């Protein structure tokens, strides 16, 4: 028996020391045996000593901590702001506000149609504490009409933000660690009654339990009970191997004794409650009752009812065997057994046990993670890991204020899900059903500040897993083109928007001698065109010619200045977007364009305070000028043309001509990927659609990703891009066909911006078709 052996060893050692007797000199073999015995004892002692250190180090290392809280961005309301009552109600509910008849307590609100009376909480923001107060908000026609606080009119009201998740920044996986005080009494009682009745009394190993188990197993003729204590079960997890040899059992017993020697029962129980293996979710193991409560029931541990707690305890003995989702009958049987045992020990009444046994299991469908926004939380984690050391994040209960906009997130998720469903249905009815589901990703940011408003990692809402927004690295196709045109337009003596380009077949000889003959999307050469038109209509041939003229190194440099950090190979195919980037990298690139040439890092975190509210650190708004505003303005002007008359023109039809936006569609070879990147004054969004296994999506950027973007923008109601001509840029009426500036009255002439001094030479009206209307609003 393991315990006896241990004690024997110890006794032998100490008794030898105590007696002080010198071993009698016996024959040679006797001496050898004694020497071996001494050696074994020494080794055993050394081993136990090492084990002692190792176990203690591990135990200390696994101590619980209060998780950090992640907050969404606080809603800031002002009169005239575009926001509606439904959106406000969503925010209030997300922040845990209750709807009542009279807002007497903090965190309640009254809603009468478009009128709200909100009793806000006292809240510690990074920049100070806001007292609780009564706020009145009135909406009309989708905007905030009236705003008061304590009866007085307000110019601005900031509501306290919703909690969107709790994380342990130093752990890579979700954990829900609980303090022993937070564990319901019922659960502890159930656990001890079933798994370790003598927990309070034994010293790590319980001979009584072992005897009991032996007796029960003999009677049953099979192994129905185990004799190991909770401490022994805890010890099981201290080495990675899962083999159940007698040597391992010996080890576990030794560890159990060591644990009991160093730590008290409360510590051990708490460790157990957080360590016990309770299930599997794909590659993720579910450890601890806190996480298991979320995994099986979708609720906090404290919110569980008795039969649910009993089920968790039932699962301890065999998480796979008693998997409530795969084997509900076994799980139920075992759960009922737990309830019976509790009743037998007098912990619950017979009535309660009966009631408990009659309840269904109540296990929810597997929902991953503990946050409703796993893709966004993923980004937050990465930024924390990138920018902070472990020590900075170890503080308990850190309060991290993020940039998440709940409304934008909701609209983005809905747009992606609905449009993907629609596209798949269209393909199926056209007889082209694909084996793998169509997937997508969206990133939404604020164009000037770089704050991330929403991250959608896949078509299924709230599902943790492959985060396509951050990790799906795909060829970007025509999304690369603005970088080429930007490089060109930085050379005003050679290129302006009106400069002629030839959209004619071109053959490029690669370094290895092979020939590349790119084609246009419609397989047609369009002949003489202008820089502007070639970008607006996304002509491949003209773009490749331009790119080769400007130089691949210049184009690569332009991409780097735009914010692409990934090394890019300066091959000609780069010009048509053979480069592979993730949606977040594309977002960074377009952020710089929307920022007028000023690079601003895409960020998900605003600031951090301690648990008590002391400000700790802040991500300030930081910009870096990467380009002169002039050339960027010209490229963005062309990107506006994309939305008005080019490949993105369905935006105009669906969003209305009054909403000015800028963007670029992207389609890759064989219609594999469908991309769109575009922005209004207050929203920038990048959308990708495709299949994870790289089979063709089957539609272009315009047909797929752009439509998702439009759907989302429609629901968000963005502000129009304003024409802010930077210094050094002048407008001139231009006949694009001939590449000449003309008088205002010439039909067919359109205003274009130029870097001052680079305007093409003047021409007369002659040669233009009479009655030609300007192509775009002046």
């Amino acid at each position, binding site marked *: 028996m393991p315990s006896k052996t241990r004690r024997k060893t110890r006794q032998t050692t100490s008794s030898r020391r105590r007696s002080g007797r010198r071993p009698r000199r016996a024959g040679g073999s006797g001496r050898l045996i004694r020497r071996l015995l001494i050696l074994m004892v020494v080794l055993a002692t050394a081993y136990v000593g090492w084990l002692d250190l190792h176990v203690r180090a591990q135990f200390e290392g696994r101590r619980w901590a209060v998780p950090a809280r992640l907050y969404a961005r606080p809603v800031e309301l002002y009169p005239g*702001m575009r926001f509606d009552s439904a959106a406000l109600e969503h925010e209030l509910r997300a922040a845990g506000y209750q709807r009542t008849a009279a807002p007497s307590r903090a965190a309640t609100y009254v809603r009468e149609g478009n009128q709200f009376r909100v009793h806000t909480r006292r809240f510690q923001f990074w920049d100070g504490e806001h007292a609780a107060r009564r706020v009145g908000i009135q909406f009309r026609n989708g905007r905030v009409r009236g705003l008061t606080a304590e009866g007085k009119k307000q110019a601005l009201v900031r509501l306290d933000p919703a909690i969107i998740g709790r994380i342990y920044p130093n752990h890579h996986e979700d954990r829900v660690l609980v303090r022993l005080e937070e564990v319901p009494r019922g659960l502890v009682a159930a656990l001890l009654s079933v798994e370790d009745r003598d927990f309070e009394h034994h010293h790590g190993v319980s001979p009584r339990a072992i005897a009991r188990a032996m007796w029960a197993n003999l009677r049953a003729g099979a192994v129905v009970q185990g004799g190991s204590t909770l401490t022994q079960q805890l010890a099981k997890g201290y080495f990675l191997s899962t083999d159940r040899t007698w040597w391992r059992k010996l080890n576990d017993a030794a560890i159990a004794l060591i644990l009991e020697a160093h730590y008290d029962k409360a510590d051990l129980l708490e460790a157990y409650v957080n360590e016990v293996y309770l299930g599997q979710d794909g590659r993720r193991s579910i450890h601890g009752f806190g996480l298991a409560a979320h995994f099986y029931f979708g609720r906090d541990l404290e919110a569980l009812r008795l039969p649910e707690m009993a089920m968790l305890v039932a699962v301890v003995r065999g998480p796979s065997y008693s998997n409530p989702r795969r084997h509900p009958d076994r799980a139920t049987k075992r759960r009922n057994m737990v309830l019976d045992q509790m009743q037998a020990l007098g912990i619950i009444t017979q009535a309660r046990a009966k009631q408990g046994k009659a309840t269904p299991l109540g296990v929810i469908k597997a929902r991953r993670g503990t946050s409703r926004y796993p893709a966004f939380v993923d980004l937050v984690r990465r930024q924390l890991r990138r*920018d902070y050391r472990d020590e900075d994040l170890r503080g308990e209960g850190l309060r991290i204020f993020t940039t998440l906009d709940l409304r934008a997130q909701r609209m983005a998720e809905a747009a992606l899900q609905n449009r993907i469903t629609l596209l798949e249905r269209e393909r199926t009815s056209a007889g082209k059903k694909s084996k793998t589901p169509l997937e997508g990703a969206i990133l939404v940011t604020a164009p000037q500040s770089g704050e991330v408003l929403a991250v959608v990692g896949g078509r299924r809402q709230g599902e943790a897993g492959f985060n396509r927004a951050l990790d799906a690295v795909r060829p970007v196709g025509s999304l690369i083109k603005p970088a080429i045109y930007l490089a060109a337009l930085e050379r005003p003596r050679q290129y302006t928007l009106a400069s002629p380009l030839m959209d004619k077949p071109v053959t490029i000889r690669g370094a290895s001698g092979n020939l590349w003959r790119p084609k246009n999307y419609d397989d047609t050469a369009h002949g003489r065109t202008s820089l502007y038109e070639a970008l607006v209509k996304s002509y491949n041939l003209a773009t490749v010619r331009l790119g080769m003229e400007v130089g691949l190194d210049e184009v690569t440099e332009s991409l780097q200045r735009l914010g692409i950090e990934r090394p890019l190979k300066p091959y000609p195919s780069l010009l048509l977007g053979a480069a592979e980037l993730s949606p977040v990298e594309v977002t960074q690139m377009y952020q710089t364009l929307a920022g007028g040439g000023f690079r601003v890092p895409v960020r998900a975190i605003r600031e951090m305070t301690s648990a008590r509210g002391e400000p700790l650190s802040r991500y*300030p708004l930081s910009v870096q000028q990467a380009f002169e505003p002039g050339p960027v303005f010209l490229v963005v002007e062309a990107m506006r043309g994309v939305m008005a008359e080019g490949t993105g023109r369905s935006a105009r039809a669906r969003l209305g001509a009054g909403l000015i936006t800028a963007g670029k569609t992207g389609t890759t070879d064989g219609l594999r990927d469908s991309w769109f990147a575009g922005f209004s004054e207050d929203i920038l969004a990048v959308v990708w659609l495709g299949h994870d296994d790289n089979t063709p999506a089957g539609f272009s950027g315009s047909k797929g990703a752009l439509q998702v973007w439009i759907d989302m923008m429609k629901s968000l109601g963005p502000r*129009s891009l304003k024409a802010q001509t930077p210094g050094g840029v002048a*407008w001139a009426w231009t006949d694009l066909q001939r590449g000449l500036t003309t008088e205002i009255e010439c039909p067919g002439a359109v205003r274009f911006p130029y870097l001052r001094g680079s305007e093409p030479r003047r021409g007369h009206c002659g040669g233009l078709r009479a009655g030609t209307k300007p192509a775009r609003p002046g």
Partner: protein
Amino acid sequence: MPANTIPAGRSLAFLLVSVLVMDACAGGGSARHNTDSSSASAGGQPAEMRRTYVATAGSEAMGSEWTATVRPLGDGGSAPPRELPGSESIPSSSDAAAPRPIQLSQAQNNPAVASLLSTANSQSQAGDHARAAATLERAIAIEPNNAWLWHYLAAARLREGRLDQAASLAAKSNSLTATDRPLQINNWKLIAAVRRHQGDAGAAAAAESRAAARLK
């Protein structure tokens, strides 16, 4: 990288010097700024609307010529904004009107922004430049294309001791206005001061000359 520290001691001296310099150069005091008509461009732009704004008391902390709190045009701000920022679209007629110049009056029409500016001002006066910067960022979230807000943020960062950022933000402010001369001058002066402090005499001189050019 997130900012963990509050201003270094050396920035205090620099702050005094720069404020003095800029005070001297800009003609000092809470001034009435009139916008001039912009220089003609090839398309032939009409003269800008004249607009004036008046600095209110308490703007000293931001630098004497920088008007921190500005009263909105018209009735002093109690009326709701007659036009919401961003709600106007590009005129669609085919007439020869040039693209409208930056309407700073829009910013001043938004009481929320005015309120945040006032808060930022108080915070700055109390020496809490990090908080002032955070408040200004909230204002920028409401009006991202308001060049003056970016300028104030540059000033706040300057006071925090973040010189590079101060210069970058001033450049960003400049990129958002083609025609607001006083603002451009302020920005160039700020940049010049930063470069001088960083020991880049060449860049400082270049910035100074840009400022001087705008004065003409």
